[in-house]
């Protein structure tokens, strides 16, 4: 278990970051990470060769996806704009804080699979191959999904700073 401690512990902040970005709410995100770590401890000897980082993100991602499916089935959903503003960027200055919150709210408008690919690659620095493993899709699909995610986020960022209308996206596509 000592090797596990050495290899897993430094990755916990990154796991929290990914969970928080996907589910937004602090307590729910940390619950997911805790669940992930418990599974990692009990399955440490069953993991295959390869990156421990990708293995942990796979466990976490699957837990998050299951939770989304369950809450979608229950019909419960926390609207993005009601999420606690302190869940992000506590340390940032006020104007930065607003900007950061804005980008996270815009990211949240993307489909979950696009959010995931963007977060894993652009924020967590997973290789395209590792991201493909975590998402259980071919690398080609990772690339096309990444491309769609970036285009879509760009549309959102070039839109009004906070969604007055949730269906503004379709109008924005004529931005040129």
């Amino acid at each position: 278990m000592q090797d596990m401690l050495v290899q897993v512990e430094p990755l916990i902040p990154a796991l929290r970051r990914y969970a928080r970005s996907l589910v937004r709410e602090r307590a729910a995100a940390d619950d997911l990470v805790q669940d992930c770590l418990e599974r990692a401890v009990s399955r440490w000897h069953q993991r295959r060769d390869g990156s421990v980082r990708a293995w942990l993100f796979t466990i976490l991602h699957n837990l998050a996806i299951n939770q989304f499916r369950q809450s979608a089935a229950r019909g419960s959903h926390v609207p993005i704009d009601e999420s606690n503003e302190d869940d992000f960027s506590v340390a940032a200055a006020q104007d930065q804080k607003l900007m950061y919150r804005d980008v996270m709210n815009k990211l949240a408008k993307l489909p979950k699979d696009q959010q995931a690919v963007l977060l894993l690659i652009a924020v967590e620095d997973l290789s395209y191959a590792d991201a493909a493993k975590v998402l259980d899709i071919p690398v080609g699909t990772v690339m096309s999904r990444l491309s769609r995610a970036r285009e879509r986020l760009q549309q959102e960022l070039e839109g009004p700073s906070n969604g007055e209308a949730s269906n503004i996206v379709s109008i924005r596509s004529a931005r040129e």
Partner: protein
Amino acid sequence: MSHRPITEDDLHGYVDRVLEPERQAEVAAYLNDHPDVAKRVAAFTGQRELLRAAIAPVAEEPLPAALNLSRIIEQRRARQPSFVRWAAAALVLLSIGGIGGWSMHGALQASPGGLAALGQEAAASYSVYAPDRVRPVEVRASDSAELVQWVSERLHRPVKAPDLTMSGYRLMGGRIVASPHGPAAMFMYDDDRGSRIVVLIRAMSSADQNAPMTPQSQGDVGGFAWAEDGLGYSLMGRAAPQSLRPVADEVRRQSRPI
């Protein structure tokens, strides 16, 4: 400089800085000549930086106690002694059952059907897992403590992996396999020439608590099966029955309480 055309994937690779240095330079040169594409790539780079900056503070927060990994590992360990205590209690119960069972010896002889079914299950496990070159066992012998704990938990009684090194077989590992009678523990061994055998252990029905060792075969897979104190054992392989018999005797010897 090569003349490979710049692809959409190259542009993302450029944004994520994962290209080889030469390719990175080629994309940079391309962007220099194509300001419209360069604008898009700059936007992607910008959103990448923005996202990273927005999310970064989360990783700086102190970890809550619930995410203390040492504590999670300790909590898992703390659950294990209760299992050990439980296993000791089960051993006492088993030995009481054994004494009672012996006085009933003869009355509770296994039906041939019970052992034959066990032999078939062992032969099926052999046929499926022994030829597997990728993952014949789920838990390797190097993690035998974990393996033994796992199968003991699933079989609800202490089960050891027989040590067959004196018979020329090394433990490769094992797994839980399905049987019509519930979970069964499968241990796999191989010898110096790579020929494999499996030992299957599972609970027997109440009518088959004890049964003498009898030969079993299924196609070209053969071996032995017997039952003691409610547990059924079957050893199967492709080696000649006369060479497997002493190995089966050794498994039986080790399974008996001292």
